[in-house]
């Protein structure tokens, strides 16, 4: 009996283990080895930390990383601010079919690819685009307005792209909050603000934290949105990695960048969890 259970466990775990080793672990080990190589001349390499030193000593790379991290944090905060009321409405106020319909509406944009969604924003925001023409038609502005190719456009794209990943965990946690608890809060003399602060937010914390982690990581690792919407000032850390790998044929530095991104983003998430007094165990478990 026990042997059978063991076999079952092994069989069930196999796909996961295969997935982890073949697609995550082995490529990362390979990347690590590549990142520790230094090109001496054509086809000759030696092991060194030169690539990591290049990352730390060139202010451009660090600045780009900081810029990417700050923008991603901002995108996470904005997504949370927009996503929370939406999720609260879906989970607590809407009922029955309206609830499912609203939830489905959040999903609909994700039925098309990210590329198409981003193109949609380009059509709206560009100088000869819909919004610019509408504003001119209404007489609000004279001459075309360019809304594309700046940081605000990147932000719009990032928030739009990550909204679903904030709404889903929030709706799930908010649905488990019994209505009676909220009512009791009002009965005990609380106002809307104190009920929100003392009851709803503490209950939704695991959802908020996991949503924020996912959105932050997705924004940090996003490539398409910043490139397409950001134009000439879009420099994003993933673009640096891409250009090292593809344009400069410098896989060594690109791999080092990849690892720094992994390390630094993990450090930022860990720091945020510490700062807000949360732990990953409580969020996940």
């Amino acid at each position, binding site marked *: 009996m026990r042997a059978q259970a063991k076999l079952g466990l092994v069989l069930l775990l196999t796909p996961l283990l295969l997935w982890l080793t073949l697609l995550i672990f082995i490529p990362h080990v390979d990347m690590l080895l590549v990142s520790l190589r230094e090109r001496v001349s054509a086809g000759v390499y030696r092991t060194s930390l030169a690539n990591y030193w290049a990352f730390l000593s060139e202010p451009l790379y660090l600045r780009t990383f900081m810029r990417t991290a700050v923008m991603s944090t901002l995108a996470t905060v904005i997504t949370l601010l927009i996503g929370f009321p939406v999720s609260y409405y879906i989970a607590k106020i809407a009922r029955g079919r309206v609830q499912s319909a609203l939830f489905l509406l959040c999903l609909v944009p994700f039925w098309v690819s990210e590329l198409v969604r981003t193109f949609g924003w380009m059509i709206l925001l560009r100088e000869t685009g819909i919004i610019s023409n509408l504003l001119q038609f209404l007489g609000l502005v004279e001459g075309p307005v360019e809304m594309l190719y700046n940081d605000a456009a990147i932000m719009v794209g990032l928030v739009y792209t990550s909204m679903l990943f904030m709404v889903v965990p929030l709706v799930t946690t908010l649905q488990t909050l019994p209505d009676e608890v909220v009512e009791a809060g009002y009965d005990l003399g609380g106002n809307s603000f104190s009920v929100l602060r003392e009851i709803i937010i503490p209950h939704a914390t695991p959802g908020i934290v996991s949503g924020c982690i996912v959105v932050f990581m997705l924004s940090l690792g996003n490539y398409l949105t910043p490139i397409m919407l950001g134009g000439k000032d879009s420099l994003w850390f993933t673009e640096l990695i891409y250009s090292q790998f593809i344009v400069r044929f*410098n896989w060594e530095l690109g791999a080092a960048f990849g690892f720094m991104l992994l390390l630094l983003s993990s450090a930022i998430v860990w720091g945020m969890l510490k700062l807000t007094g949360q732990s990953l165990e409580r969020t996940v478990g």
Partner: protein
Amino acid sequence: MKLQTTAACSAVALSFCVAVAPATADTLRLLTWGGYAPDDVIAQFEEETGHTVEVTTSNNEEMIAKLRATGGGGFDLAQPSQDRIAGPQEEFGIYKPIDMSQIDTALFIPSMLEATKGNTTVGGDVYGVPHIWGTSGLVVDTANAPSVKDYTDLCNDDVAGKVSYRLKRPTLIGFAFAMGMDPFAAYSDEAAYTEMMEKVEAKLIECKANVKTYWDGSDQLIGLMRSGEAVAAMAWDAGGWKLNADNPDINFIAPTSGALGWIDTFALPAKGKADEAAYAWINFVMKPEIAAKITESSSYFTASKGADELVNEEQKARFQASFPPEAIDNIKWYPTVPTGLEVIEGGVLDRVKAAN
């Protein structure tokens, strides 16, 4: 039947499929640029030879990166520019030598064939034969940007905010020429080249305020120019002629400091499996009537001898308008890029992109 095989291939591991595939591979996996393999040409080739063609469009950097990742596998024929073959071949060994006896050399313009062979020779073997050539220069809306005559004119005040170019090496080279320097002469001298690129970097950073956006793909550029969002851009001649067909004000002009000439080649990836089909494709598309077809659909000119006479008058007129004889003599052809230059240029491009 074909569909079922493909489905089976994706279901089972790929290695099994390779084993059961017939010995004479008849699928030509072509790694090329957009517009180089028009659908009607492919259809005619498939009908005449029985081979099938799978096209993947790409650019120079991605071609090299893709082939490097697989050690030269995954494709049977690639089309990198002639100046980008020798360097990557020395460093990564991603191509195999071309067997010139398999190629009908009479189909090629002799001077272009010899020049390409010379530039793509590594260790006595030839790695490339020419296919399509063209230049990069300026595409200008002459009604709205009459002042733009050279690359550096893109920084003029009267076109502020309405300029676009690629943040790639042709821009660096073009600006260097327009600033009175000769980057090709400095190719072999890293210190001199670095110094030159620093000057170009300063100029490009100063010029950044003028730029609407840096374009990436030719469709994006055409969109920008056609909508009037940009009035002057650095671009390929074919893009300019395409726009000229819709709007006569927009045309390609050869900059006063000289257009930059490139030749895209045929090169065989080291682990290509369908050499026979690859040679058949080369000899097929170099036939004058086929080459003329490609020119008409994509506006690019080919290295096929006699093909330009078969091209329609409209196309010829556009070419002559952009290239008076003295402009043709002034074309700066790219010499082979030595390894290591990309790193210098990469740093410059990163800093320009990051500058405010």
